């Protein structure tokens, strides 16, 4: 609502500026502006009309409708589909809980927004293809998926509400707050474990080979693991880079520079081909694990550079003050330097992770079938041969939905960082 008011406010301002300009610059300028606007509108109209005509006319969306399960979970067995559905609900519940408990809603927005788009998409399908019989069937098949998504959204909302309650319950009581914090951390660990067990099977559950994981499920898994793992590694690399031990420094610099000097495709190939060579005999990890290793290695080097930038933003006086109050090197970095450095690096790191989310598409080359892989597989099915435009347009919408929410969430993260920066400046004069 406030976003809308702000948008309207913005348009009004723009309109006022324009009228002011028009008065100042006279009729030639106005004519020129009008011509430019008409040309731009015409161009946009052409593109929209072309796309629309294709989407509502020539395009045959049955390739998407018939393969929705492939797009969402890959070759995960149909009977076991409740397992990824549960995982989805667990993850959204976790993000909701975190949002409610701490007010950090970035993840919850990411999942909530992404899911909302996914939920909306199939409603467009009958609109696009008319009410053909095949569509009706596809739509019925989709209802199952819908239940899972709705359940996940419900879990998110419920956990958010409970998290907010819990945080209110603990807000007046420090030991309680610390217990809540600790319980949450343990809970997150358990949830991650539960997710892996649920997806892989074992212990009573039927085994599902990770090579059968695919589609959006795999995209999200790869991105999530690579992000969560590359962040601490990147921080350590950034610190290693300024270590006083030459070996540590050298290894960190070599890691960062080599990885940054090589395309991600190469890193993924190397992870796939080299990892089995350096690991103990007979220990050949799944392709999914190799992909996570490659993506993590890649992202960690970039995170390290972002954190290095953040470290440079920390004033020398902070080190002096930390030492002067008696903190050792570890305490100085953990309590004083890194919190400031990471806060300053958040915008850059968020951008990095948005790229990483899209870059997961490259695991195609080590024969994993995430969204892009499925798009290609689906368009090669005999019934839908050559329908690449439809499948690629479909996954483009999904990628865009998730990255759009991710970047709007990261903008929210950036705001406090800017505030802090202002605080950081020494205040030789009174501020009020």
């Amino acid at each position, binding site marked *: 609502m406030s976003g809308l008011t702000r948008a309207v406010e913005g348009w009004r301002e723009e309109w006022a500026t324009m009228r002011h300009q028009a008065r100042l610059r006279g009729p030639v300028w106005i004519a020129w502006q009008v011509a430019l606007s008409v040309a731009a509108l015409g161009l946009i109209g052409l593109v929209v009309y072309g796309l629309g005509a294709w989407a509502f006319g020539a395009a045959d969306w049955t390739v998407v409708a018939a393969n929705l399960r492939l797009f969402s979970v890959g070759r995960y067995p149909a009977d076991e589909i409740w397992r990824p559905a549960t995982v989805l609900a667990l993850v959204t519940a976790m993000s909701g809980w975190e949002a409610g408990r701490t007010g950090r809603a970035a993840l919850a927005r990411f999942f909530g927004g992404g899911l909302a788009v996914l939920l909306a998409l199939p409603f467009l399908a009958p609109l696009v293809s008319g009410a053909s019989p095949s569509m009706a069937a596809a739509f019925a098949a989709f209802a199952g998926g819908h239940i899972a998504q709705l359940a996940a959204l419900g879990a998110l909302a419920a956990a958010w509400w409970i998290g907010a309650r819990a945080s209110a319950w603990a807000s007046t009581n*420090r030991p309680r707050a610390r217990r809540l914090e600790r319980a949450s951390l343990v809970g997150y660990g358990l949830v991650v474990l539960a997710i892996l067990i649920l997806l892989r099977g074992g212990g009573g559950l039927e085994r599902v080979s990770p090579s059968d994981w695919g589609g959006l499920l795999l995209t999200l898994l790869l991105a999530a693991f690579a992000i969560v793992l590359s962040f601490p590694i990147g921080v350590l690399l950034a610190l290693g880079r300024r270590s006083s031990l030459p070996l540590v420094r050298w290894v960190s610099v070599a890691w960062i520079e080599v990885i940054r000097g090589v395309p991600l495709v190469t890193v993924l190939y190397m992870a796939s081909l080299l990892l089995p060579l350096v690991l103990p005999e007979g220990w050949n990890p799944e392709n999914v694990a190799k992909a996570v290793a490659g993506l993590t290695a890649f992202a960690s080097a970039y995170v390290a550079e972002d954190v290095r930038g953040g470290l440079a933003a920390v*004033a020398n*006086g*902070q080190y*002096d*003050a*930390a*030492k*002067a*109050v*008696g*903190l*050792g090197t570890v*305490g100085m970095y953990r*309590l*004083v330097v890194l*919190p*400031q450095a990471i*806060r300053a690096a958040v915008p850059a790191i968020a951008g990095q992770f948005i790229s990483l989310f899209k870059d997961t598409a490259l695991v195609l080359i080590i024969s994993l079938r995430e969204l892009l892989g499925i798009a290609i597989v689906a368009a090669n099915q005999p019934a839908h041969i050559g329908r690449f435009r439809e499948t690629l347009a479909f996954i483009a919408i999904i990628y865009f939905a998730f990255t759009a929410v991710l970047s709007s969430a990261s903008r929210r993260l950036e705001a406090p960082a800017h*505030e*802090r920066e*202002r*605080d*950081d*400046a*020494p*205040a*030789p*004069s*009174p*501020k*009020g």
Partner: protein
Amino acid sequence: MDELAAVPVSQAPTQSRTSDVIIEATGVTKSFGDFQALSGVTMSVRQGEVVVILGPSGSGKSTFVRTLNRLEPHDGGRIVIDGIALTHDVKDIEAVRREVGMVFQQFNLFPHLTVLENITLAPIHVRRWPRDKAEQVARDLLDQVHIPEQADKYPGQLSGGQQQRVAIARALAMQPKIMLFDEPTSALDPEMIKEVLEVMQDLAQTGMTMIVVTHEVGFARAVADRVVLFDEGTIVEEAPPEIFFTAPKHERTKRFLAQIL
């Protein structure tokens, strides 16, 4: 409650101006590349003494004070703080830093922490006090520097004078035996200098051992036991304030005083 009320200042030695030497610097030298910032500084400070260091810009005042808690390692000479000789030994350095508080010209508060967190950080993580005790001590100290109501604000929300008083409280929270001040009022507007100097004067009265680099002659006259003039990395003159300001021995001191008085 009684034990909590025992805030650092009241724990400082009650019979001040004893003769025990607590800082012993002998022939301290320090170079930055080719430039010799300290060329043999010898100074000894007794417990409870307040020493004010004056001197022109670049004369090595900051450098000397920073060698006393080893923010700058010295190249030559010997520094003994409360019986601990400063060497490369990390354990010794950290032991000295626990006993020596420092206040900087630019305050150097931790901008990502609230005032209360700034003050309790080291007591909790270095002294390993329970949080409740650390917070109680911190609140008492905020009372003592006259800003009890600012505990939950961030440093960026305070005036310069308030920030500097928080910085003093932060240093005192570790219950140091020695306090170092490096131009604590030089970044402040005139109307705030007074509030900070008052806090420092109160502190001196409790018997705290203090080394203060400052240009505030009034403070030196009123509070110092001894005034020291630095020039070109050495001590030129050293005398009680009555003598230093009225009957200096050295030509250099006279010229310096003529400039600042």
